């Protein structure tokens, strides 16, 4: 392992800019950290270099824990966006800086300098001053300088940001070539996805301080796991789809005996097929709309199709071009496609998809359920739900009538009288999770997860999804009743530890575990009272009375808190 990050966290004024990042990078690997500005990628890079101290977590380079080691002793090479060359020194002195610091002999220094300048194609520039060089040349000097002391790790912070397009392309190739020649483990930070695709062995996407996903460029593009990555890496249409068995459709379900499972489908513009006929062989029907925009852009034609809201729904509420009743779907076509089937603005088209990727997110959308509209509106504006939906880019729909089955998406109810009955009805009629909120509930600062034996995996998945969007402390809880036989105690303890390692392995979450002894209701209450702003994620193994009895106090009791209920598969 060349670079290992273990739960690295950095806060500025208690706001985490790098939040619990764990990552391992192989020897010789080229990793690109990609993210919008303010996502924490540069801070993370500086933390690896030792230029920023971390508040929590460990950083090791080649097996050596360097968390407390100063930048000067870490032996990494760092390249800055604005070169940071020493302007009073010649190119030669700049390149030799690290060697002089290490008191290398003059003859060796000169040999190494010649070698490095050859590497970056700047032979004969030794005596120039940085001000006499172009931007691209200056950055080459910076690269040579960073490599002089043969660092095991090369870190580049937006190195092409200040250069124009053509130089950028050229320097990209040079750096990639040098990196492969030397086999030096490299991390490059950028906000430019083309750059990431062009250079990376693996890409790590950062957002709001979290490392959301890491993977090879093609894998991340074809099979993103989160909404953010799906939309940040290339263009994407995110739609709510409904799955029943093997069948996926986009038409919304109406009063069906069995609620289909709602998913978030990713359809890339190039996978959209626009037809005027009705031959849809090998394609999945999405809906129909009218062509609103045609844009010629070199090798491809870009189109936008206006789709009615009654048809398929976009999974993200604030997609560009959305108005009350319609939204815009992106499509692109190659020249041969365009020639075979010319389209014009205003034309009606059938939209279908060649390839659909469904996101493995447990929360596809929220459905607020209430008797009357004002109550639904109040629940919808509850800070916890509103903030969560904004951060997750998730649609909230409102429902005031009950149909034959639970609504698709996650039902959201108001806590208080009657909540338990409605919750149980929805769980029994196909809801795969359910959120019960006191009206006005704030974003929690502590999330307590009581996973249950059967429901554990699902509960953890949902908790992980929440924690990716809420910077809260998380606790895994298990309770031993006085009546629990010893044999069962051991197995419960094992379950708890298993859940913890699952959380870590699958979701990259480090959760604290808490084992309590006594009456479950009292112990849950105690655990939730640790922080007034707690939220409970409750795994339900079955809907039998024995299991659901405690919902009485939790959902209708004197002290109401947000409770997310996740039943085990087949609990209904």
């Amino acid at each position, binding site marked *: 392992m060349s670079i290992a990050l273990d739960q690295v966290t950095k806060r500025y004024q208690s706001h985490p800019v790098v939040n619990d990042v764990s990552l391992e990078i192989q020897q010789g690997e080229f990793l690109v950290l990609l993210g919008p500005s303010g996502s924490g990628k540069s801070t993370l890079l500086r933390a690896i270099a030792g230029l920023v101290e971390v508040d929590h977590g460990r950083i090791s380079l080649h097996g050596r824990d360097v968390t407390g080691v100063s*930048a000067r002793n870490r032996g990494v090479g*760092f390249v*800055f966006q604005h070169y940071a060359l020493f*302007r*009073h020194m010649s190119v030669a002195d700049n390149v030799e800086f690290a060697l002089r*610091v290490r008191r290398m002999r003059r003859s060796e220094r000169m040999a190494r300098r010649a070698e490095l300048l050859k590497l970056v194609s700047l032979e004969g520039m030794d005596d120039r001053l940085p001000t006499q060089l172009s931007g691209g040349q200056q950055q080459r000097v910076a690269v040579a300088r960073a490599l002089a*002391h043969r660092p095991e790790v090369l870190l580049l912070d937006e190195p092409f940001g200040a250069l124009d397009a053509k130089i950028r392309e050229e320097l990209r190739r040079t750096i990639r070539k040098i990196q492969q020649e030397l086999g030096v483990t490299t991390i490059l930070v950028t906000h430019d996805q083309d750059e990431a695709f062009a250079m990376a062995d693996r890409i790590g996407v950062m957002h709001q301080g979290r490392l959301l996903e890491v993977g090879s460029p093609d894998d991340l593009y074809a099979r993103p796991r989160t909404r953010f990555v799906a939309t940040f890496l290339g263009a994407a249409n995110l739609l709510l789809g409904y799955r029943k068995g093997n069948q996926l459709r986009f038409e919304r379900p109406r009063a069906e005996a069995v609620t289909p499972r709602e998913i978030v489908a990713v359809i890339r513009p190039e996978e959209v097929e626009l037809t005027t006929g009705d031959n849809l062989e090998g394609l999945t029907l999405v809906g129909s709309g009218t062509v609103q925009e045609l844009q010629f852009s070199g090798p491809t034609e870009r189109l936008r199709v206006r789709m009615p809201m009654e048809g398929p729904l976009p999974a993200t509420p604030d997609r560009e071009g959305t108005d009350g009743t319609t939204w815009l779907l992106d499509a692109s076509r190659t020249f041969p496609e365009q020639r075979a089937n010319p389209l014009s603005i205003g034309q009606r088209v059938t939209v279908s998809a060649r390839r659909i990727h469904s996101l493995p997110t447990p929360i596809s959308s929220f459905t607020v359920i209430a008797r009357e509209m004002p109550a639904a509106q109040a629940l919808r504006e509850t800070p916890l739900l509103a903030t969560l939906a904004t951060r997750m880019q998730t649609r909230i729909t409102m429902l005031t009538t009950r149909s034959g089955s639970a609504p698709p998406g996650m039902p959201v109810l108001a806590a208080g009288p009657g909540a338990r009955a409605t919750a149980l009805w929805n769980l029994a009629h196909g809801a795969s999770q359910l959120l019960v909120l006191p009206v006005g509930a704030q974003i929690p600062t502590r999330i307590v997860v009581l996973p249950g034996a059967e429901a554990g995996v699902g509960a953890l998945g949902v908790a992980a999804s929440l924690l990716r969007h809420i910077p809260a402390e998380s606790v895994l809880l298990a309770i031993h009743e006085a009546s629990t036989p010893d044999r069962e105690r051991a197995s419960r303890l094992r379950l708890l530890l298993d859940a913890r390692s699952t959380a870590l392995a699958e979701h990259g979450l480090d959760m604290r575990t808490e084992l309590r002894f006594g009456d479950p209701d009292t112990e849950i209450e105690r655990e939730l009272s640790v922080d007034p702003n707690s939220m409970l994620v409750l795994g339900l193994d079955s809907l039998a009375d024995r299991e659901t009895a405690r919902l009485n106090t939790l959902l209708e009791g004197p002290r109401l808190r947000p409770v997310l209920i996740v039943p085990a598969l087949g609990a209904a």
Partner: protein
Amino acid sequence: MAGQRFVAASPLPGFGLTFGFTTFFLSAAILLPLGALMIRALGIPPTELIDILLDERAVASYRLSFGAAALAAAINAVFGFIVAWSLVRYDFPGRRLLDTMIDLPFALPTAVSGIALATVFSPTGWLGQQLALAGVQVAYTWLGVVVALVLIGLPFVVRSVQPALIEVGKELEDAAESLGAGGFHVFRRVILPTILPALATGFTLAFARGIGEYGSVVFISGNLPLKTEITPLLIVIKLEQYDYAGAAALGFFMLVMSFVMLFAINLVQGWGQRRMGIGATR
């Protein structure tokens, strides 16, 4: 060259008018009086001129003026740098107020600062009393002159170094550190050389100002001939004695020195700009 114009269109009226005004203004305000002074001084027979310039009292005043100005500028170079550093690198409550206060010696009539200093440093003043106990006398000695010139020269150094330090930024330090350099090495090899032209400019400006300073010095120096008499004061004294030739000769000498200083500043700035393109301009 037919048709070649070296004037670009501009929002101010005609080149002729603005250029004419510039030359007129420069002539009326600067060249004319200085020219008159020069003619007056050069009208003195050379031997007499040399006698005036090498007079014992005059030489003593040069020594004090130049020596104290150089010492004060050197002190300011060190402490002005530290002040600029803390203003640029740290954010503390009252930073902006402090930043504004740096310019106070600029804005204050020099006589006011002179009286203020004299009050504080006189043997009965706040600081003077304490220093007298330690056996140090500031007021009415050459030390007093230095103190006054330090006060007057500080803004020049701070305001020269400040923009250069801002421009150096944290990144250069980070770069040096990641290459393995320790704190002192970073300062000596990276920060100091980078801001050196700016520091040199500040030093020269403070020095030049120190030589010419009059108002703030005369109150604290005591003005003893041969001991604490600065050259500008000597000129005033000569004028009061109707010795116009003597005053003009000394004035001429100061003028030449000022030119030399200006020239030096320009050299330093040009050198700095060539070398790193920053920091040398105020």
